[in-house]
């Protein structure tokens, strides 16, 4: 069962605006790792053959540590400093700190609970209704205050995050009970959702289709089945979905 064709051996398809930058880092690092491993490995094997015990040949007695033996350490240090400052911090700052402006993005609140994802949309008025944990019950899992006019057109979608193509999304995430983690492999994005904290995260899908959400942090006996889908549609289809949901609600 792999209808989307996104998944296979190796990295899943890349489908967010910053996914290719993360893939670039993954490829770079794995290239460097393979290079180091093979250099080490070839040297090791060569030593094992060249310096195996031979009758009448004694080992070389030496306590010297020539300056050249520090070259690998220095090269490693320089490479890592370059990596951190030229690649690591810029990408990480982009992912964590370049949160999209409210007017130019879709805003969704994500409330995680054992073992489902509750996506709360503000509806056509663009305003989230007040929510209060004291009002939460099975028919009102978000605890929306029905007396608040802003809450009238709010939309709740369980385990399905509908998004339009071409806009970044700003997720404001919170958890009702334990630590969960929002993970969409194709978007190369992952963020823990810690109870007691409101944690923002953003991404911009670059393809329409269905993308799987998994929970990446052990959250109890149902952790393995805490899954969902991101459904990315064209802006028109998304608008129709919003209209349909609003009607259903009112």
């Amino acid at each position, binding site marked *: 069962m792999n209808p989307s064709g996104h998944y296979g051996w190796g990295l899943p398809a890349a489908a967010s605006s910053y996914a290719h930058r993360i893939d670039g880092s993954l490829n770079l690092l794995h290239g460097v790792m393979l290079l180091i491993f093979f250099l080490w*490995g070839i040297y090791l094997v060569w030593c094992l053959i060249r310096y195996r015990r031979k009758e009448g040949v004694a*080992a070389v*007695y030496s306590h010297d540590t020539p300056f050249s033996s520090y070259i690998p350490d220095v090269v490693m240090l320089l490479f*890592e400093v370059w990596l951190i400052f030229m690649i690591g911090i810029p990408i990480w700052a982009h992912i964590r700190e370049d949160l999209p402006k409210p007017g130019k993005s879709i805003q969704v609140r994500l409330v995680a609970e054992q073992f489902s994802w509750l996506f709360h949309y503000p509806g056509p008025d663009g305003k989230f209704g007040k929510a209060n944990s004291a009002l939460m019950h099975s028919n009102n899992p978000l605890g929306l205050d029905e007396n608040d006019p802003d809450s009238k057109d709010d939309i709740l979608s369980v385990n399905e995050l509908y998004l339009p193509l071409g806009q970044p999304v700003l997720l404001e995430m919170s958890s009702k009970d334990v630590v969960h983690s929002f993970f969409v492999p194709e978007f190369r994005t992952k963020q823990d959702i810690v109870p007691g904290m409101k944690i923002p995260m953003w991404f911009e899908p670059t393809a329409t289709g269905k993308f799987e959400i998994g929970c990446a942090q052990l959250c109890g006996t149902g952790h393995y089945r805490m899954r969902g889908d991101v459904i990315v549609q064209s802006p028109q289809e998304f608008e129709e979905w919003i209209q349909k949901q609003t009607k259903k609600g009112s």
Partner: protein
Amino acid sequence: MEPNNHSENFAQKWVFSKDHKVIGLQYMFTSFSFLLFGFSLVLLMRWQLAYPGNPIPWIGSFLPKSIAVGGIMHPAAYNSLGAMHGTIMIFLGIVPLGVGAFGNYFLPLQIGARDMAFPTLNMFSYWVYFLGGLLMFFSFFLPGGAAQSGWTSYVPLSIISPGQTVWLIAMTFLITSSLLGSINFIVTTVNLRAPGLTWSRLPLFVWAQFITALLLLFAFPVLQAGAVLQLLDRIAGTSFYIPTGLIVGGAPLDRSGGGSALLWQHLFWFLAHPEVYVLLLPAMGIVSEILANGTRKPIFGYKEIAGSFCFIGILSFMVWAHHMFVSGMKTSLSYLFMTTTMIISVPSVAILTCFLLSLKGASIRFTLPMLFALTFLPMFGIGGLTGLPLGFTPTDVYLHDTYYVIGHFHYVVVTGSMIALMGGIYYWFPKMFGRKMNEFWGKVHFWGTILTMNGIFFPMFIQGLSGVQRRLYDPTVQSHNLAVQPTNVFMSYCALGLLIFQIPFIVNFFRSIFKGEKTEENPWHATTLEWACPSPPLPHKNFESAPTVYRGPYEYSVPGHSTDYIPQNVP
């Protein structure tokens, strides 16, 4: 301490002994049992991962209902087995073997001491460890079962899950034991070195144990405090880690709240990262000893290696939050921890480089211990290198909490540390029992073990890159895990193979204690002080006469000398 002339009865000699060698052996046999137990837990999990929802063949019908019903494991049991596998392997298996067994037995011998500085405290720390271990073990049979929130015990899940109270109490026992032990190791190393054994003549194994003891001393109290707070949250209704307004299972949690869930993660990882080096440093110490002996030359860069041990020790206290890059911690903190994490790889590279350069110009003997020590190099290399993309935030965001992480730390701890510890067993067996282990069965054990270990752990990287998360009871529920599911079947059979290849080791070990080929005092022609006493060393006394040290630890192949080694105690 007055010489022990009076005869001891069985209990004084083998059970409540104050002799560091007997205590070392007690640690060794206890940790062997826990390693085997912790490993069998994972075999049950591996069946579930390979064939989710299928009854476990044969063994399934013997399992208690709390683990499997009709042979089919249930999710809570899977989580329990996972949490307990991690806890047991780390705190009851590898650390007691590397520090408790090898440290206790060989640190006093290598510094030419008659015993640890505090023999009674030494006995006490073993028994506290033993009690903690028993408690961990029996938690499976208590109502509520064993802990099921991972070895990391993240709050608030751990606070609301059954089994955690016993885990926390058992952990306080284990931590207390380690603290007492670490003080003993530090005082012994500082005060009881033989005349002439200066710091720059210490064997690297002693350096490694000394730094490890400092790590335990400074890191464990933090977890101790953290665990007590979590225990209070569970049994006294406090809210140190519980934020306001939690709704669990649809009902509000009856707590005042105001606590912080991230606080636990900081306290836990403040211990648990240095802990990784507690697992690793003794292994590196053992590899240094075996390499110098098997290459017949002084180890390359003695000062660089000892310095790197110290540097790792200091730096390991400044990297803990790299486990928390996606935890919601402030972004600027992750810049700092990414930098320190990258820097800590430099001393590890330095140590590996020194080990490799030690081979240059050598006369390599491919003895059994040497096979293990040589295998440590590429295997630890893989473990270390795969740490890079995990310490680097842009790649960690994808790989965090996937099987890539599991692969990384198993390469470090199992194919790294555990392989080195096995090498240590073959190397020091003649000293402990005066006999040698069988070479042929040792080689069967060696090849079987490294092949199956790689068969288990390498596919974890493939799974991780495909996005398979860790701690999933049934990975096939999520479609992104399906493509690589066949690797799970392969890994499970490798795990079974690994178990089978331990049988020759176990039989060889116990048979050799009684029937192995008898050896002389110094069968490997080694230089350090433990080889200057009889095999096994004299009870409570070790050496016939107190040794004096005249030279560095690895004086092999000195030109113009009649033998290719000069022991440290030879004038």
